[in-house]
């Protein structure tokens, strides 16, 4: 282990970790918003909306995130979409993770006991009120864990933006591996920072899960 090297490169990695956190956070927010819209579409009464929602989820889950990022960043300019690597990165990651988050949300909503819906409708609640006041509060609790799993996957997957030259943790790692030829030291530094981010997020998820648990 070359400790002097680790000390020398650590500040650059810290900065890169900031980029990884920010890009993951932006993608998370976009992912949640899109996923909520997709879930609403997939549970709607309109067949066209249901189909569009299902098609989005199927296509984004059925193709690699890396290809989606390349299509957006390299292919975008051909159809008039010119984005910086950073912007293409968080939008691409967010659009990808939305498909997985939509699955988690739908799963949680469908997991709420059917009797709840029936009871709400029986006492005169409309469809919207049943969803908003009865189903969603219960489903929200069930969503926390699967959405947490999605978020951890998103953070690790955010490393793909290094392939469109966003200077994040993975990009910095690759650069220092090929300039210092010390793969193990560089991996150790990058791995430590990824682990810290993932552990912090997992702890937040566990806290939220415990805070909102019914029992």
């Amino acid at each position: 282990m070359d400790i002097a090297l680790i000390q020398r490169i650590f500040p650059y990695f810290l900065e890169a970790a900031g980029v990884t956190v920010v890009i993951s956070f932006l993608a998370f927010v976009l992912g949640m918003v899109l996923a909520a819209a997709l879930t609403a579409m997939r549970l709607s009464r309109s067949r066209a909306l249901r189909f569009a929602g299902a098609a989005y989820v199927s296509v984004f889950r059925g193709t690699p995130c890396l290809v989606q990022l390349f299509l957006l960043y390299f292919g975008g300019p051909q159809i008039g979409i010119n984005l910086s690597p950073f912007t293409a990165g968080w939008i691409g990651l967010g659009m990808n993770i939305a498909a997985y988050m939509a699955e988690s949300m739908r799963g949680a909503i469908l997991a709420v006991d059917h009797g709840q819906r029936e009871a709400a409708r029986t006492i005169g609640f409309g469809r919207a009120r049943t969803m908003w006041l009865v189903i969603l509060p219960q489903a929200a609790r069930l969503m926390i864990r699967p959405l947490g799993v999605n978020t951890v996957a998103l953070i690790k997957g955010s490393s793909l933006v290094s392939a469109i030259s966003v200077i994040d943790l993975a990009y910095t790692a690759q650069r220092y591996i090929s300039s210092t030829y010390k793969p193990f030291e560089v991996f150790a530094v990058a791995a430590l920072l990824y682990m810290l981010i993932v552990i912090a997020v997992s702890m937040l998820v566990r806290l939220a899960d415990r805070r909102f648990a019914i029992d």
Partner: protein
Amino acid sequence: MQGLDFTVLVEYLPFLAWGAWWTALISVLAGFLSFGMGVVFAVALLYAPAVIRAPVAGFMWLFMGTPLLLQLFLIYFGLVQIGIDIPAIWSGVIGLGLHYAVYNADILRAGIASIDKGQTEGSRSLGFGRLQTLRYVVVPQAVRLTLPPIGSNMIALLKESSLVSVIGIAELVNAAQLGISSTFRPFEFYIAVAAIYYLLNLLLEGVLALIEKRVEATK
């Protein structure tokens, strides 16, 4: 802004098909590795003495918490540094295989632990050794139980195999990049690549459904 022209792809179709073939090959090899090593890791976690169990657990923890891309860099550049000079394609297969072995092991461990103790006791009382009991009685039942989640890992593996293009291994994404470098038409190529992955995915889902059906039938 130039118009889109998908006819440029026609000339490159054999090229893309060749890339798809390598993607399939890398995924199949890595898939088998991830399954085999997954079983080994799972058994080690449950039955091995602490000197083996602790490093396996540590390795799994490390590989679950870090991105596959980073692991590919480590294996690709690291193997050479410790004097193992193998073709790049193998570092891709090993990286993908080990990454998903960890996820498979996590599932298989739970599967093995859920097999009724009576199965082990019955097998041991019939004269099977400890390893034989695992090999012929416990692990097969655990695999049957955990096929659906392992199948989803295989689907994820197929898609993530695109990452090995970043370390310069010739597969589907890499083939597209070569085509793009002479046509300057990334949009058309990446749409085509996405479509091919989607088809490969459907194919794999079909194969997995077949396997599950066969396993179901032997229950």
